[in-house]
């Protein structure tokens, strides 16, 4: 008997028992729904963290600190060359200029940029109003979204990237209007005696305005300038103080993302604590994977339950159709084909259940996406990403599971003795 004819007959006998077919399919649909959603959530979550990282971290950059004394036990002995900075988390060892030079010599390292974090007094623009600001060093490898202007390659010295909030505060009509205009940043010399304060103003040209993003952790008050500009500010403000040229963290640039791990190992062996962007991404992705695994487990459990449902339904179907099976065998239908008939029925149930479940998951996810994003303040980023290939695989997998579940009832049907089956009364 041809597969086409068997498939049609299998579909027809399912149509006869509509309620039973639908209910059995719904059990699978629950599993399909859960699995499709958890796959979508996993994909969405990973894509989200990837985006967060490309907006905040540079994969060719390692964040390096001195090995933390908190990792050691008990108070530390004082020594002449130990220098610490008090933080809310305790005393922290800092990187000296010496360390920076040492790290620069490590093979694979292109550049070491100490975290200058220059403290500035205020920023002012066209309306002469003064605002507090945080200055950060621009990295060409961190993806930014621009409201106006754009940067190709690195930022030149004495150029600045404002944020949308500052554009308004500093008195520009629009982001576009601010491009090319000058802003002034004033820094205090920290070592100057309090009775005779010194300060210096620096002028920067607005090169671009970064827009607010659901992905960036960077605060809206953080303005970007080039490394050298930052160093100039830092030097002016800190020279002559105890903490001059001592840094909590430094960014180490490497040639390409693949080298980051090797350089990390080298730095670790030298007694530094280094973290790559991949390390941080890995932590978050592990978390997502565990959550996804739990969800998938629930889905698998639902499918396991539905397997018994299919077996049960198909056994009942075989019993109900004893005479039909007997007749078909008397008419010369082969055992193999009788078995295939029932396995294909199970396959139809799996296809139906898988399609219903995945379809509902897709609809529910698509409808829920904007609400989730709104609730989590993610703007236009969706946390559920439905990959068509995943949906196809889920449905195909469930068809396979159903066929396997149908094997036992199908065998019973195939083994049925036609004489017994056709005996009347």
């Amino acid at each position: 008997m041809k597969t086409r004819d068997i498939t049609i007959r299998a579909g027809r006998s399912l149509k006869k028992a509509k309620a039973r077919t639908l209910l059995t399919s719904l059990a699978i649909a629950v599993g399909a729904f859960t699995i499709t959603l958890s796959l979508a959530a996993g994909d969405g979550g990973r894509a989200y963290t990837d985006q967060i990282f490309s907006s905040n971290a540079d994969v060719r950059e390692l964040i390096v600190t001195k090995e933390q004394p908190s990792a050691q036990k008990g108070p530390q002995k004082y020594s002449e060359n130990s220098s610490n900075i008090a933080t809310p988390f305790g005393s922290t060892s800092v990187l000296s200029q010496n360390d920076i030079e040492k790290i620069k010599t490590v093979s694979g390292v292109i550049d070491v940029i100490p975290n200058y974090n220059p403290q500035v007094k205020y920023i002012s623009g066209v309306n002469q109003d003064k605002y507090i600001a945080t200055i950060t060093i621009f990295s060409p490898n961190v993806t930014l979204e621009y409201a106006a202007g754009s940067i190709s390659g690195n930022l030149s010295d004495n150029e600045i990237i404002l944020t949308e909030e500052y554009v308004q505060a500093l008195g520009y009509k629009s982001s576009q209007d601010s491009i090319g205009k000058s802003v002034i940043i004033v820094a205090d010399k920290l070592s100057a005696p309090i009775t005779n304060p010194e300060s210096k103003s620096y002028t920067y040209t607005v090169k671009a305005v970064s827009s607010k993003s659901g992905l960036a952790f960077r605060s809206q008050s953080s303005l970007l300038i080039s490394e050298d500009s930052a160093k100039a500010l830092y030097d002016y403000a800190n020279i002559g103080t105890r903490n001059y040229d001592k840094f909590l963290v430094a960014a180490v640039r490497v040639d390409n993302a693949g080298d980051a791990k090797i350089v990390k190992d080298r730095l670790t062996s030298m007694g530094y604590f280094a973290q790559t962007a991949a390390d941080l991404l890995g932590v978050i992705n592990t978390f997502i994977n565990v959550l996804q695994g739990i969800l998938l487990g629930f889905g698998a459990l639902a499918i396991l339950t539905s397997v018994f449902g299919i077996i049960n339904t198909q056994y009942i179907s075989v019993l109900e159709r004893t005479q039909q099976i007997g007749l078909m065998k008397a008419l010369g239908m082969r055992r193999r084909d009788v078995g295939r008939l029932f396995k294909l029925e199970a396959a139809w149930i799996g296809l139906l259940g898988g399609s219903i479940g995945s379809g509902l998951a897709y609809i529910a996810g698509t409808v829920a996406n904007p609400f989730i994003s709104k609730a989590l303040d993610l703007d236009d980023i969706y946390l559920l990403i439905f990959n068509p290939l995943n949906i196809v695989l889920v449905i195909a997998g469930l068809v396979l599971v159903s066929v396997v579940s149908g094997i036992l009832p199908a065998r019973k049907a195939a083994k049925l003795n036609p004489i017994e089956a056709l005996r009347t009364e």
Partner: protein
Amino acid sequence: MIEVKNVSKTYGKKDNAFMALSDVSFTIPKGASVAILGKSGSGKSTLMHIMSGLDKPESGEVIIGGRNILQIKQKEIDRFRSRSMSFIFQSFFIQANESCYDNVSLPLEIADVAPSRRRAKIESALRAVELFDKMKSRARDLSGGQKQRLAVARAIVNNPQILFADEPTGNLDSTTGAVIEDLLFDYNKKNNITLVVVTHDSDLANRCDIQINIKDGKIDKITGGKK
């Protein structure tokens, strides 16, 4: 031609053994109509099952067209049954939920007849039993006589060489039963196929060329046949 030689069949084991057929032999010429006559439990149904390859006896041979069907593989017997034999049962065994068309289509599907060649065969079979206008009706909506006519259509659609009818009129009143009988004997004569009727109805048996009387698993007597 069907040759049955020394067929014996036992059901059950040891103490409960029951000999359904013991050393049964006879020959049916091609194109004949044969009645296997006997009371309930005489072994007549078992004999039909063995002749059609549905059941296997402990000993003996069933030779159809020169081949002993008890010696060939199950796959071959299935193919043989799908192409050369067909059945009519007392309880019709039609699929109530399917249309008449799909009911008649089943043997063609099993015999792997190409889909394009099915329609003409199904239509001519339904026309032969005067159910052409009911082609799209569901089988459950038919009367008893119509159901058995549908079963006849299903039996003849693939032009079998041998047609087995197990109490074909047992569930019908005499008028509708007569219609079925006429259909079967007409088909038997027109197409020169072998018709084997299993019955306990002597009136029906008497319309056949040969009557084989079975009693307690043995051949009681064979009448007719020598024309």
